């Protein structure tokens, strides 16, 4: 069950990979990186259950708290042309 979910997530990650490389606009890439962060969190939780280490779930939660930093910095740069 968890394996099937993990395979579906990885297949989705392949689609995200295509969008991140192909672009064409920089916003597509920013969105792709953001989705990749979300997929990382879910894949981490699934890996925790597949390899019987359920405490990975806590780590996945902390990941979810820090993966948005890059997107915030990117949007700030696009809005004001700097990080000030």
């Amino acid at each position, binding site marked *: 069950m968890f394996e099937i979910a993990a395979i579906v997530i990885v297949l989705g990650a392949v689609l995200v990979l295509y969008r991140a490389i192909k672009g064409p606009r920089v916003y597509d890439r920013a969105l792709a990186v953001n989705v990749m962060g979300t997929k*990382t969190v879910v894949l981490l939780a699934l890996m925790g259950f597949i390899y019987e280490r359920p405490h990975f779930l806590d780590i996945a939660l902390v990941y979810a708290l820090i993966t948005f930093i*890059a997107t915030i*910095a990117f949007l700030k*740069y696009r809005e004001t042309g700097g990080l*000030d």
Partner: protein
Amino acid sequence: MIDFMLLFFLVIFAIAAISMKDLLSAVMIFSAYSLIMALVWMRMNAVDVAFTEAAVGAGITTVLLIAALSRTKRREENSPQSEITNSKSIQRRLLLSLITVIVTGAMLVYSTIDMPDFGDPDAPANLHVAARYIEKSYEETGVVNFVTAVLASYRGYDTLGEVVVIFTAGVGVVLLLRRRKEQ
């Protein structure tokens, strides 16, 4: 299976990041690369390294690179060198450097054959002081977690030095990146 998929993603992201002309896109792809790298660390049970990779590699490094971009230009420019690369001597030099890189890489891969297997209990790293830390650290230091005992007690001065280095680096970054209102 999942290891191969993660390594495949890593290679694709790495090639994409160095071949991108738009530097902002390259920074974003580098951030995704760090996220996948964190998953690889996690797969090797190196949870603390994975945290550092996600926080520093995907978070802080991206912010620093974007800050650098905001002070410079966003696009990589075609340097006049690209016209010279057709000449014979430059091509020969490029071929020579390619051969050097391939030979060095092959030697490094060859040296990994002698390394102990992943998680091998008889590996030299597991036979030296690890057993003493596991058995004696509570008696000697009174700290329950023996990783904390090694970091904060056995290697206390080492950790103090590391903290000083990181604090100095942090102060330097803050001084470089702070808002320049006075000017």
